[in-house]
């Protein structure tokens, strides 16, 4: 490559070469657009098409890409590391990627409303691999009709998913504390869960030896939305242009969080989990309950902890059982992609067939295709128990609607900052709700102004 040679030249120390290097660097940055036959879209017409897939590091193993390229010799896949800024730059610079990873549950309204994502209904209609009646309900989070998630055009699909408000428990910790194991069918209330957390927590000196309960994990916003929804309220206004945290339901949920954090029984904004996360502590029998979806089993089954764990339904805050998915990680195709057909070929190959089956049997999440629902692993007792609970939980799957006017990361950051302040300065729930309304509505308002 030219840029490597000029790089070497430069190390000999001449200024002229320095300029050559930068020219090389600049060239390299648009090298992606070299061997493309514009406008032809899908493969064929003799040459090969190169599609650009933007994903997190290590998300698509080189072997996987190679397997696809072997099956489709007319398409080459170039994997780019996902990066918000870079994505924006590529989309506005006319160098759009052809496939992008994303968590459909939270981003779909945003990518749909802003016109970033292409609707895929025509492709689904024609597909022989991904048939509409085979799509699991979770794929509805990838739909948005302008006011509601779960209806309208499909903008993507989940590769697999979990109902993320369920939880795992460590029976050894329960036995040590003399606590009753959670039911496999009846959901616990949040209050009972907190009580349990306190019972399971073992302290000595200034240290916590065994933590009771990691209930909120790292994404608090969707969990609060779930609680409010269970109590019959909503966080977002109907037009999704504002939030209201001062409703009775929302204040109850916020109050619960403050109480939970003050109880100091597990990770919270004022006592963050160790950087390695809470799963290692759970494996070491130092955590009683971990709120996490079915996917966590994939990390637990192979460990020695697997013989004393259990899986339980999502707890219930209000009168209805609500068990949503906060991720539904999958792929979408940018409207500005110039190789949509080729991108769809990869999409189909990755989302259906052998690949989907391999994922389903691994235990790292639920299949997004109904036909694969029976494929969950059940060889070990823990796997069998989890499969039973999960199968029953499916009936309570629900779709939450996020706002297209702000990224959920921004909402999450604002929420966590205000929770931290409220806990540190001992603010009331009412004051916290007001501060949140102020901060979050400013974000949403800007989003509305800039979208309309």
């Amino acid at each position, binding site marked *: 490559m030219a840029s490597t040679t000029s790089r070497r030249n430069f190390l000999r120390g001449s200024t002229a070469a320095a300029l050559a290097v930068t020219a090389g660097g600049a060239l390299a940055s648009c090298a992606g657009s070299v061997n493309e036959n514009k406008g032809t879209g899908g493969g064929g017409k003799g040459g090969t098409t190169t599609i650009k897939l933007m994903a997190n590091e290590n998300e698509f193993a080189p072997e996987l890409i190679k397997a696809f390229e072997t099956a489709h010799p007319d398409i080459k896949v170039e994997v780019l590391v996902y990066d918000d800024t870079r994505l924006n730059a590529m989309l506005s610079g006319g160098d759009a990627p052809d496939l992008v990873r994303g968590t459909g549950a939270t981003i779909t309204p945003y990518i749909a409303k802003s016109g970033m994502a292409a609707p895929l209904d025509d492709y689904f209609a024609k597909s022989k691999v991904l048939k509409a009646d085979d799509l699991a309900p979770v794929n509805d989070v990838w739909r948005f009709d302008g006011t509601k998630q779960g209806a309208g055009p499909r903008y993507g699909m989940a590769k697999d998913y979990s109902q993320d408000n369920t939880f795992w428990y460590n029976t050894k910790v329960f036995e040590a504390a003399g606590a009753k194991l959670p039911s496999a069918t009846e959901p616990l209330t949040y209050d009972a869960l907190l009580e349990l957390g306190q019972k399971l927590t073992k302290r000595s000196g200034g240290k916590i030896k065994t933590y009771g309960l990691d209930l909120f994990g790292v994404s608090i916003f969707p969990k609060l939305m779930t609680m409010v929804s269970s109590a019959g309220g909503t966080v977002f206004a109907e037009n999704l242009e504002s939030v209201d945290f001062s409703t009775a339901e929302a204040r109850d949920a916020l109050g619960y969080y403050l109480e939970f954090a003050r109880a100091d029984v597990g990770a919270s904004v004022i006592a963050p989990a160790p950087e390695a*996360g809470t799963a290692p502590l759970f494996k070491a029998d130092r955590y009683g309950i971990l709120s996490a979806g079915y996917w966590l089993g994939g990390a637990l089954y192979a460990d020695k902890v697997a013989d004393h764990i259990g899986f339980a339904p999502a707890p219930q805050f209000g009168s209805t059982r609500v068990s949503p998915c906060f991720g539904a990680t999958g792929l979408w195709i940018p409207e500005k992609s110039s190789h949509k057909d080729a991108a769809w070929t990869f999409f189909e190959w990755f989302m259906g067939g052998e690949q989907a089956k391999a994922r389903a049997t691994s235990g790292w999440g639920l299949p997004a295709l109904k036909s694969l629902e029976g494929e969950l692993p059940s060889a070990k007792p823990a796997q069998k128990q989890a499969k039973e609970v999960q199968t029953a939980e499916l009936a309570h799957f629900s779709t939450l609607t996020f706002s297209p006017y702000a990224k959920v990361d*921004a909402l999450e*950051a604002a929420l966590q900052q205000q929770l*931290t302040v409220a806990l*540190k300065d001992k603010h009331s729930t009412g004051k916290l709700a007001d501060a949140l309304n102020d901060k979050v509505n400013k*974000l949403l308002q*800007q989003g509305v102004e*800039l979208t309309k």
Partner: protein
Amino acid sequence: MSVQTEARPVAVAAAPKPPPRKRWSRYRSRTFYAFVAPWLIGFLALTVVPMLYALRMSFTNTNGISDKARWVGIDNYVEALHDADVLHSLYRTGLFTLTVVPLTVLGSVLLALLVNQPIRGKGFFRTLFYLPAIVPGVAAALTWKLIFDKDAGPANGVMELLGLDPVTWLQDPAVSYVLLSLMLWGIGGGMLVSLAGLQDIPKELLEAARVDGAGKLRVFWHVTVPLLSPILLFQVVTGVINALQIIAQPMLLAPSAGGVVSAAKVSPDTNMYMVHVYAQYFTFGRWGYGSALLWLLFVVVLVITFLVMRLGRRVVFYNVDPDSQGEKG
């Protein structure tokens, strides 16, 4: 340091004057511009233009992507002055500056005095003390994170040995002290500058004072400190301005789950002003608001710089000795 600026043109004025004078001076002034052009163009393009760009954005509601941004007048500035989070970050930044600057300046001078004594191995100690100052900030912060790790860090290991309860160092309120100690580790740079100043003090002056019967402390206070004052002032000013803009260290000390360096994860006690500004841009997408916050900081820094350059001439004692200029370097 500004006085040298005033004092030095002597040498320039004495430059060669070959005939014919007028054409020569025109040639020389043209050449002057040719020589300073790279800096001037760079300054305009990479400092002035970005600052004006930020100024323009500060009157809009832009998020940097949408083409529907509109003017909002001084709304962003008004909001900033009423934003409890902004005021809090200002307070923390002020407190940090008022702590870290005196500590680092005092520390660097004391360290310089210590290694300026006629003792064996002083070169070795100087090297050792300076070493941390050249460690890249990222590596230093990551090292600090290892040291103050709640479970695996030696800081809590020592606490354990002393029979004390372990401390969650990287959280409020302890994280402020962790940040402070991180800054103090790098005072070798200041030490070297102070040392250069100490060595510039003529030995005869110190001896004369001592012969006059002044005690060590008096000599230090009445001879050393005044002669060192320009250096002290320089360190205080750069120290203040750097402390006001601190951003990378608090971000690196914050939890980094997922390998994302995020301004939003920084705990309230170390949520310094620039960290808060950074979050407005890159977490919340509020470029207009962030730009307004940035300009408030610019104004503060510009005022400080201006005051110092004015004040510096009067308050600080300068050793302007034309004879000693030639030998420098």
